């Protein structure tokens, strides 16, 4: 028989302090769709980087069409027809659809590109996103941009296409169409596809084979028909899935600690209010774009045009800026911890001390590094920060430990109100449990906690009470047994069981979904938001 399309043999790659890949081998045939599965940090990105030629492996070989490639650079990879479609669509919003498709081509290639453009546009249309070649990409929705990225990857003589989380911004019925089109293209044109996704139903429906990476090593390699999503998840994690239960549910008699009313911002429809009791964890669920982040930011007055009137322990406090909210003891732990929670290039202790005024000063107006470090170390110990060395730069910590640093800067200050926005985004399973324990502990100490999350199992397991936000308003409140996936999702999407939405769900890739799997409303993104509004 003909050679394999792609043979990856014994690839290893180390970075200072980390072995990202260690002896990874697999093959890819023409027309095969192979899922690359693994937790965050398992080495998927590194492997894609090597396939794309951006990274050079320490060891191992890449063989394409039977030819072993020695000098494998990005240019070589492109010439070989290897295309990596990144998770963040790598397109230029100011250019038109056609200009984006042509990006990077030489003049000769452009001349001969008419057919490819037509085909790419047809592909996009068949994925359910018809678009005109002259439309500026800035007018496309995130889902359309993703579809365009996928189509571009398959255009211009692609032989091997890697799709990294290609459906994150799409609605479920779109996902089904995109996936079926990807299968048609792959099988019809003999393109080998490497598919990276965390969403098991997609993986089960689209792939032919699956290879699981765990800690940089291939842990599992099977045809998809011989395995199940439960099985794959188990191989990915290598341990039982997280199950977390609150150790300290709120005392029903606890007094209200935090109250905010008239919370609004420049684009909000109606002012909102919320009250949280001492020791209570209130979860806020809803689709991305429903206004949850803006709600939290308005409370601390982070954006111009936001309003709120806040009282803590029954006493009104005047808040005009994040400065005031810090003084009042309100902590905001933002979603994008790299850009909004940390100063990455400064040491961990300086990050934790960022909320200090003069408290950690030594002599006169001068700060005491010793005090800052001692305080940060004490915090680190309490939260089992790893590594424990707080003089390392914030950048050098993993997602979960970075999150601990962000939380630490409020705990030492004695904040009593904690507003979390997606507290475990980009945190691996072990880290998640630690964050949950921390939230539980904060609540048990009598603080008021609000958690915005798109991770439903998370919201369900840590909240005493859940509020669902839709289109900038709280549409439902859930307590006790009413905190369940079905009722939360139904309210978040604005559908009751007889609405057309359910038929869309039927059209979604059918597969056995383990209950532990994330049904992630966030993944449906802005489009879902629009659709939800339409149906309500």
């Amino acid at each position: 028989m003909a050679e394999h399309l792609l043979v990856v043999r014994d690839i290893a790659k180390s970075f200072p302090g980390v072995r990202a890949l260690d002896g990874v081998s697999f093959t890819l045939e023409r027309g095969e769709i192979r899922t690359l599965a693994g937790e965050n940090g398992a080495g998927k990105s590194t492997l894609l980087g090597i396939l794309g030629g951006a990274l050079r492996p320490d060891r191992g070989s890449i063989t394409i069409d039977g030819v072993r490639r020695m000098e494998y650079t990005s240019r070589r990879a492109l010439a070989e027809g290897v295309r990596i479609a990144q998770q963040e669509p790598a397109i230029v919003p100011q250019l038109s659809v056609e200009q984006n498709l042509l990006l990077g081509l030489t003049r000769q290639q452009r001349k001969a590109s008419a057919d490819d453009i037509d085909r790419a546009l047809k592909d996009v249309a068949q994925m359910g996103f018809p678009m005109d070649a002259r439309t500026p990409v800035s007018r496309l929705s995130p889902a359309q941009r993703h579809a365009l990225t996928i189509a571009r990857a398959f255009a211009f003589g692609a032989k091997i296409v890697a799709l990294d989380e290609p459906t994150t911004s799409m609605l479920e019925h779109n996902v089904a169409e995109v996936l079926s089109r990807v299968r048609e293209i792959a099988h019809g044109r003999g393109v080998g596809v490497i598919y990276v996704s965390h969403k098991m139903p997609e993986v089960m429906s689209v792939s032919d084979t699956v290879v699981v990476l765990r800690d940089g090593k291939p842990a599992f390699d099977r045809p998809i028909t011989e395995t199940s999503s439960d099985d794959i998840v188990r191989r990915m994690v290598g341990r039982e899935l997280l199950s977390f239960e609150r150790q300290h549910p709120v005392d029903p008699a606890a007094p209200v600690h935090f109250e905010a009313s008239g919370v609004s911002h420049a684009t909000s429809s109606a002012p909102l209010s919320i009250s949280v009791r001492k020791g209570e964890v209130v979860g806020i669920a809803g689709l991305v774009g429903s206004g949850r982040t803006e709600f939290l930011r308005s409370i601390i007055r982070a954006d111009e045009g936001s309003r709120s009137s806040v009282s803590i322990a029954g006493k009104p406090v005047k808040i005009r800026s994040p400065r005031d909210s810090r003084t009042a003891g309100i902590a905001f732990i933002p979603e994008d911890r790299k850009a909004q929670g940390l100063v990455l290039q400064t040491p961990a202790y300086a990050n934790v001390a960022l909320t200090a005024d003069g408290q950690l000063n030594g002599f006169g107006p001068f700060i005491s590094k010793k005090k800052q470090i001692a305080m940060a170390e004490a915090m680190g110990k309490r939260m089992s920060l790893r590594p424990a060395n707080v003089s390392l730069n914030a950048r050098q910590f993993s997602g979960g430990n970075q999150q601990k640093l962000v939380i630490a800067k409020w705990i030492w200050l004695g904040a009593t109100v904690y507003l979390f926005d997606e507290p475990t985004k980009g945190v691996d399973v072990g880290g998640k449990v630690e964050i949950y324990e921390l939230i539980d502990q904060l609540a048990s100490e009598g603080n008021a906690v609000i958690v915005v999350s798109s991770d439903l199992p998370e919201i369900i397991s840590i909240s005493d009470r859940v509020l669902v936000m839709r289109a900038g308003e709280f549409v439902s409140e859930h307590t006790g047994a009413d905190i369940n996936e079905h009722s939360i999702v139904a309210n978040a999407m604005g559908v009751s069981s007889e609405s057309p939405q359910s038929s869309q769900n039927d059209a979604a890739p059918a597969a056995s979904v383990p209950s532990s799997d994330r049904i992630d409303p966030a993944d449906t993104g802005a489009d879902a938001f629009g659709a939800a509004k339409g149906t309500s």
Partner: protein
Amino acid sequence: MSSATPDGIALRPRRQINFQALGIYIAAIVLFIVLGLLNPNFLTAGNLRDVAVSASVNAIIGIGLTFVIITGGIDLSVGAIASFVGIVSATLMVNGGIPPAMGLIAGIILGIVCGAVNGLLITKLRLPPFIATLGTMSVFQGCAYVATNGKPVYDVPKEFVLLLNSYVVGIPVVVIVVAVVAVGAGLLLRKTVFGQNVIAVGGSEETAWLSGVRVHRVKIAVYCLAGGLSALGGLVIVARINAAQPDAGSPYQLTAIAAAVIGGANLMGGEGRIAGTLVGAVILGALTNGLVLLNVPSFYEQIVTGLVVLIAVSLDQGSKGWPMLKRSNKKDLTAAPPTASTSAVRS
């Protein structure tokens, strides 16, 4: 919960040697040795004193700029402020008859006011620092011309000249001034809450804001500092040439930025060192001086200065950017999906 599991080996923070910072010192030493070998007069005490004096204006202005650059900003108006303040102070002393010490203080206050204008334009009107200070550069320079109709002010009081251009036990006063400014700036940057906030604002403005740092206040303060130190630099120029020229500061407009950048200040913000800026200024001063000693026509000096800036910055970028590995390593360590922030660094 976690308090029960002490993590055992608490790694003692190891003192890290910053090789990047070291490079600039090595370069300076090499430059001195080379110039000394090429011309034996270079390494004489008298000449080294000249080098120090000629580096002083760049050092003073550059230190102020370092703060601005660390916040991620830029101040193009420093040279114009120096000119403007020099003219105004000299006029006050020569024609207004105010005492030299008052002239000095008035000048520095004027510089701080100019800086405050920059800061307010940047924070309250949200102008990009480049645009705001490009505008004020022109305005301040124009003010300097308007103040005396473009004429220089001669015969500055002798006491004023002595104040900044004399020697104390053989050490030029300006060098002492630079030392005091540098030590003060170093303490301010590394040892105060303000300094930590400056670094935080430059590293991630949003993080600083959400952590309760008064970002606007920090920025305005930083431009005031740059304005005040530019004023001091302008007054040093006046004392050195014994007259105020309406465009005396303009040569320092860009060389002060160059000094900061050679010293490792990162125009993207978050990074910069006072000592580095000092060394940067010394390197530029030594080059100017050395090229004169070597009888190199003065036009070449600019070419050399430019090349030094380019080499210094590309070495700095190189030591950060060598391994693309390093960057993707960060990605893997932090194990988070590549959000916009990680990819925005530089690719």
